[in-house]
């Protein structure tokens, strides 16, 4: 492939520039994703700051809410077991 004299060098420079830009963008995106993963993972690990009285109180309260929801949900088991078919006599 022939290019007019004087255009070859700028073309190569532009190509290199694009390659560098793509590489840098990829690197930045990868770093950001890894950072997110790390922070998500660290959320699951329990640290001393997670065990403050306030946080424990909230945990107790959340569990009480969940237990109550399970108890309410359990009422539907009895409702299902005691289900009576609608009157179809005529």
């Amino acid at each position, binding site marked *: 492939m022939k290019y007019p004299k004087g255009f070859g060098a700028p073309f190569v420079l532009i190509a290199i520039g694009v390659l560098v830009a793509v590489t840098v963008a990829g690197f930045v995106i990868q770093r950001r994703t890894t950072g997110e993963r790390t922070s998500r993972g660290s959320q699951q690990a329990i640290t*001393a700051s*997670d065990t403050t009285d306030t946080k424990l109180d909230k945990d107790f309260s959340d569990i009480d809410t969940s*237990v109550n929801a*399970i108890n309410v949900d359990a009422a539907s088991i009895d409702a*299902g077991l005691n289900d009576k*078919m*609608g009157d*179809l006599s*005529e």
Partner: protein
Amino acid sequence: MKKLLVIVFATLLASSLQTVHAEASNLQNQSNRQDAVNARVTQIQERKTTIQTNMISRLKEKAVKEIDRRIVSLDKLIDRINAVKRLTTDQKSTMVGQITTEITNLNTLKTKINGDTDIATLRTDVQSIVKSYRIYALYIPKITIIANADKILNLIEGEMATLTAKLQLRIDEAKTNGINVDAMVSLMTQRKAKLDEATTQANNAIAKVTALTPDGWPGNKTELQAARDMLKTARKDLNDAQKFASQVRVQLVQLKPTKTPKPTNTIAPTPTP
């Protein structure tokens, strides 16, 4: 003599005329009675048709209401099945498939019932609602049991496990500070035992009902009742486990040193001369 004959003849004629008239009158009466009977029969027939039409209408209304009630409940079951974590994709697919088939059958039956004009056919169709009841009667408690057990297990493995870890961290911290934590350790052990039992009960409840099929209804109702009782125990265990956790929490609060007021830097008043 001739006169006598005329009298006799006249008498006979009069008598005959009277008989003919009576007969005619009788026939007229009979005809009127027949008309009355016919009118009555028509009236009864009309009443019978009205009663039957009303009966068909009422029976259709009841049947459609029952079908709709089941379709609504079965629709909700599909959402519940898909939300359960402890069923395999195949198990979910089979259950959802059976329920979807039942919903389709009920919709087809509803269309048929709505189109029925004959009471005998309608009664037969309504009877098929009764026959298919076992599918509904089994699936409603079966899926609610599985869903409830799943919620219990999610809570134990999620929020309650996190709380256990947090409390344990606080206990370890206290131990490092030289505090006797034996009582709290004991409470945590009892809590763990309750949570373990709840886990076993919930898993057993799922295992007990998963294999139940409508063919076994109503015989397998006792299995459903047993699974329900297992979940009752599991829920009681959850409450007990939380009570132990609360006791640990109280003890942890009591360990906290009471804050002594920090001395403030005050400038000594300049002595007055």
